[in-house]
């Protein structure tokens, strides 16, 4: 019995020695601990503060024929006779028309309204949102008449189609298979549904992707965009991988982040895509005016 106790003791002793972590510190370089990646806060609040204003027009009568005209020149021809409550009730005066105009990439970026249809980038000449309200209730078209919209453009493209926005976060653009009329003013179309309207056409099909990585940042809350100068379109990147990008297109990609102290960071890269690309995102501090200048220069 005593012999077995001694043996057990030895077993325990040896097991303990083997369990204790041994180290090769004397011959191996210590493994470099990767620097902790910076985690950014949500940038939603910053983006909301930078959104172009949604304009409101209170319609008290429809005596004249003048359209509602937005700050960027969008014209809306609407009548209360075309509107109804969701339950089908008719609408009386006054009612409110709300208009968002997104013609510049900076506005599309801050509204997070990429010009993407079923994962495909669109060639765009502008996005608008037209909504009508009565006593806080959003109205809809009653089917008796459409709403006419005109979007300004000095060189309208007759191939541009009417796309309507469906869903949210993100809005998906769906073609109505109807072309805009081109006029001296720009584009004109009769719309049968209020909401997001886009002037678009599909460019060459996409073939390449961009994957975003970072050695220094966790990209979860970082907002990533790709701007296509030749298309005027904006693609937003989700989960660090872009949708398909047409071959040999020059693009400008940029990332915007906000830390917990509300400091701004950004990264940008201009490149021409002719194969799949992986970008290492290195975010740098930036001021709001500098970032705004950059986005205005797109």
């Amino acid at each position, binding site marked *: 019995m005593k012999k077995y106790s001694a043996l057990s003791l*030895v077993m325990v002793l040896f097991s303990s020695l*083997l369990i204790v972590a041994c180290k090769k510190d*004397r011959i191996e370089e210590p493994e470099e601990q990767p620097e902790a990646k910076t985690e950014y806060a949500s940038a939603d609040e910053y983006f909301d503060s930078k959104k172009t204003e949604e304009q409101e027009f209170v319609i008290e009568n429809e005596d004249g024929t003048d359209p509602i005209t937005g700050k960027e020149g969008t014209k809306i021809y609407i009548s209360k006779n075309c509107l109804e409550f969701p339950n089908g009730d008719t609408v009386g005066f006054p009612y409110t028309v709300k208009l968002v105009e997104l013609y510049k990439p900076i506005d599309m970026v801050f509204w997070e309204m990429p010009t993407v249809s079923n994962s495909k980038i669109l060639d765009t000449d502008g996005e608008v949102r037209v909504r009508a309200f009565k006593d806080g209730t959003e109205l809809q078209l009653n089917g008796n008449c459409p709403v006419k919209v005109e979007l300004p453009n000095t060189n309208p493209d007759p191939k541009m189609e009417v796309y309507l926005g469906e869903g949210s976060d993100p809005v998906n653009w769906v073609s109505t298979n109807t072309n805009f009329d081109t006029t001296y003013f720009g584009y004109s179309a009769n719309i049968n549904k209020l909401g997001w309207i886009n002037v678009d056409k599909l460019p060459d099909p996409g073939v390449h992707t961009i994957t975003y990585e970072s050695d220094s940042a966790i990209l979860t809350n970082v907002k990533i965009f790709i701007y296509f100068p030749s298309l005027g379109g904006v693609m937003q990147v989700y989960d660090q991988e872009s949708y398909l990008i047409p071959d040999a297109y020059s693009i400008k990609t940029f990332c915007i982040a906000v830390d917990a102290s509300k400091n701004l960071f950004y990264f940008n890269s201009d490149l021409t895509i002719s194969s799949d690309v992986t970008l290492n995102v290195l975010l740098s501090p930036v001021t709001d005016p500098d970032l705004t200048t950059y986005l205005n220069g797109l």
Partner: protein
Amino acid sequence: MIFKYNKLGVGFYKLLVLCCLTAFASLTSKGQNIGIGASGLYNFQTEGWGVGARLSINPNNRLSFVPQFSYYLPSNKVNEYYAGLSIEYKLYLAKKFHLYALMHGAYNSWLNYESSPMEDAQANNWNLEFGGGLTTNGCWRPFIEYRYNMNFKETHLQVGIMYILGCGSRSSHGICPAYH
């Protein structure tokens, strides 16, 4: 722990000399109280080979004192020597072999510490090892030991052979009296 080389080095050598004198004194007065041995060593962490020499004082008693010297060759990544004293306690005594636990304190001179990537590498170190071993009970005793170095957090294996002085003489009949 950081020890000054001059103080501890000299102190250790005094101890070593004392041990040797004691061993030889015992050797001249009594048979089979001293064993001498040599060994080969392999350190699993530094991947270094070494050689060792030792005396065993009272190798046939349950408690033995074993001054020893080990040298890891210059061809290794770590070139160093150890000079120290082990205390061996026999845990299990069989007819032909015995199993022992050991504790070993040693001065370590790390000769090429400057080439090590270790941050606090230094030439002079003090080490404490724990381990165990297995050996036979005859005049020639092959042994194997496995030890853990608390300072460097390294293990090494030691394989060697020890000869018990005076063993095999007429009085002992070749078998150590402790195990009769």
